[in-house]
């Protein structure tokens, strides 16, 4: 087994989200909450502390009626690779509660190690991390639908999207039992990808040219995973976080909304550097 692993190329799981197809329906958010035992409270309208591993943002083009336009942007954890696994959150965690897995490229979150300093939240430029300010409370009887695959979190720890890592583990267990070490593309898919009624989310191994995500994003691993497809962009590309979530849009204003630009900056020239 070990011998085999040595020669195996590391996987880099990632996502391509087609913003032209995304309808902002929120199915990815709920699919995630239902899969990962995400808690909820009476009032969730303060979005800063409303735990949503996947959050759909609404972008506007800033123009007046009737030229106004909107676009939805689903934001899971970007599972940044940074420079050789130095993602912003991993580098700052004093408890090794969040770690970069070189085998899959997934940034983990280990709740029992986390002591709630929230340094990672400050470091994350995507607001993908949430703190449990309160103990999770499920209404009477509702704990029945909790999934045993994901442990419910307690007050005082940080949580975030795991690319449904338990699904990876289950798929790998199954593969090992069947004497395989490699997963088929459709064997490991996140809950949000599976649920999306518009089929806007594609998930797979960015390092595998056979996988759809690779073909869509055409990542250039020599240059920090920069997308080769001109309609594809990443959020805050210029920070160098090297995220594994790619977005695709045919509208320039949407692609432009993915990063910050100074006035009069030539977007077309700079946006992928």
């Amino acid at each position: 087994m070990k011998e085999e692993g040595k020669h195996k190329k590391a996987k880099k799981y990632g996502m391509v989200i087609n913003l032209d197809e995304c309808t902002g329906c929120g199915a990815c958010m709920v699919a995630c909450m239902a899969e990962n035992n995400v808690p909820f409270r009476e009032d969730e309208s303060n979005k800063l502390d409303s735990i949503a591993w996947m959050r759909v943002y609404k972008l506007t083009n800033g123009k007046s009626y009737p030229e106004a336009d909107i676009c939805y942007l689903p934001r899971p954890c970007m599972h940044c690779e940074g420079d050789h696994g130095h993602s912003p959150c991993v580098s700052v965690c004093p408890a090794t509660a969040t770690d970069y897995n070189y085998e899959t490229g997934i940034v983990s979150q280990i709740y029992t190690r986390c002591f709630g300093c929230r340094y990672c939240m400050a470091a994350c430029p995507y607001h993908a991390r949430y703190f449990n300010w309160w103990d999770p409370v499920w209404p009477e009887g509702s704990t029945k639908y909790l999934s045993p695959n994901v442990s419910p979190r307690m007050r005082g720890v940080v949580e975030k999207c795991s690319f449904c890592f338990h699904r990876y583990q289950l798929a790998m267990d199954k593969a090992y039992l069947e004497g395989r070490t490699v997963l088929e593309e459709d064997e490991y898919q996140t809950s949000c990808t599976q649920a999306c009624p518009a089929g806007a989310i594609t998930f797979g191994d960015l390092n595998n040219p056979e996988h759809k995500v690779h073909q869509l994003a055409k990542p250039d691993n020599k240059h920090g995973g920069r997308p080769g497809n001109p309609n594809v962009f990443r959020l805050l590309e210029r920070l160098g976080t090297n995220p594994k979530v790619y977005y695709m849009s045919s509208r320039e204003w949407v692609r432009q909304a993915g990063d910050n630009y100074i006035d009069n900056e030539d977007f077309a020239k700079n946006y992928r550097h």
Partner: protein
Amino acid sequence: MEIGRRSFLSFIIGGAAGTAISPLPWKLIDDSSIWSQNWPWTPVPPDGEYSQSNSVCTLCPGGCGITVRKVDDRAVKIEGMKGHPVNDGGICVMGLSGLQLLYGPTRVKTPLKRAGKRGEGKWEKISWDEAISDVTKKLAEIRSKGESHAVGSIVNSDSGTVPNLFKRFLTAYGSPNFMTMPSMQDSYNMTMLLMQGVSAQVGFDAENADFILSFGSGIIDGWGSPVRMFKANSAWKVNGKKVVQIESRLSNTAAKSDKWIPIKPGTEAALALGIANVIIMESLYNRENIESQSGFDAFKELVLNEYSTDNVSSITGINSATIVSLAKNFAQASKPLAICGKGQGSTPGSLNEFMAVHALNALVGNINKEGGVWAVSESDYIKWPELEMDSIAESGMQKERIDGAGSEYPHAKSLLNRLAEVINSGDGSLGALFVSDANPLYSMPDSKALNTAFDSIPFVVSFSSYMDETASNSDLILPNHVYLERYEDVPTPGGLQKNVIGLTKPVVTPQFNTKNVGDSIILIAKALGGSIADAFPWDSYDACLKETLGDKWDVLEENGFWSDSDSKVATGEFNFYPDAMKSLSSFSSVSIEGSTISYPLVLIPYDSIRLANGYIGDPPFVIKTVEDTVLKGKTACVEINPKTGKELGLTEGRYAFIHTPRGKAKVKVHLYEGIMPGIVALPRGLGHTAYDKYLAGKGCNFNELIGPAEDPISGLDAAWGIRARLTKI
């Protein structure tokens, strides 16, 4: 030793430093945080044997197939069923949250009898025997007085076995008052009847259309069978098909369309006829096929005389060039498709609009064609033996319906929108009312008036699984199983061009002391005896269902769905100009309530897939996804154009009151560039008073602010808005 200032400070600082360096405080903090993190109320979900079960979701009429993941006997996740003809693996926010309804706190756990005043929330738990006998006694009493026609029922639709059991029960009992919740399907059905002479359900071959002209239909906001429409929308994007959205607000559908054309709300019919005008003027239709169809000449005269491009431009506020190019693009597309029914289609709307849009489809020759509109004959699997009525039933069935359907409005089947006014004005009364799979006290326009009407109905029985608004204002609740606990057929979802029947299955055993509503009806009928009991020869609902589905049962039990191999088309001669269309000879929009002086703005509703506005309200997960520009704290946000905001002195986030002729509510202002100046938009689906704390008391109910406007032809509700005023707080 003398304690001086110097040694005192040394002692304090040294002590503090020593304590800080020692592990003691850190260990204590660490221990206490670990201790508090292990408080026993953080649940540890038990593991067990995994299994999967296929069923159908009935949270909306969409009819999606679902796969439920189970651990031992617990259902832990609902997913879209792969390979299902409606949704093929996709699922919506509501469907995903079904388990929160199954296990949630809003379930009615046992039959309940009102103990306090109605709506007070005081209940007495009773046995099923007592509940059935209470209903039976009351019904026998009404019947013995010869007032059998004063019993009514409100259900969600008129197809499927459960609604038909209600209908059969009322017929055998002697009442014509079988009422259904209104929707755009009513208007489409009537359009089919008037223009094609067929009794059929409308189907859209959306997947194969290549130019979709939507008159305000929320294609990706929950219109039709929602997941199916999401999928169609994505396929259009991939294949480069065009979508044009016509509405006054930049909805999600408008934002995702290829072109958004804002229109003065309520003038959609004029635009449809204006497009027809261009098509006829420029001869962009198949003259040979179309001109021979009946009524075409009169239709042509109507659109040429009244709906010239300039005239339509001034009615709709859309410039002439846009209308002309839209008409050309539509007519020149190879498979154009025009659809209507605003938002999610939860209100029927103006029949003129439906007829005008349907005529547009006929003009481009896409009726019963690939990529077009289909008249789908409903699957007639319900073939129950003719029932024998006794004399009381016969005389009861001779009486006119309380809502005027079939008499005042000859084509209508049910006009629930008229019930409140008929009762409140003293023109009619009901002695008992059954409500099942519907929540009219929340979802009917002018819900306050309906509430008043309910007050005068002495006996209201709810069959709801949840403590919704109607259930909490009833006298007796006979709770139904939730869809994940029962067998029930799911008839073809609206808008599908071929018949797909689904079957819900008991994925888990009933969690509480509930009973399938079908069984409740059969038990009541049997207890009433005589010809009523004879009309229900089945031992149980499941037996009835199995017998009804016949040879389809095995397929349904195994796959969860049964579908026709091809479309069953109802054919009739198309008529471009039925009598009902004469009212279009001079265009006037369905007038909305309120004077322009006291109410300078126009309030319109908008639908979001994240806000359920029917029988079932948002479960906690779904309400959590609602944006803070839609709901903030306990206040709903209204959208207004920044220009309107400036005129009224209202800035982003300001609290205000919205006043309409029907009501008043506190709202928060959200300035939105995607809405026409002068219009206020409020989301549907908020302002519940019932359900759990996660939903109740949040925002205001749009239906409390609007009144019904009767369509002169159909009698259905055609209100698309109401005049309003916003005042600062």
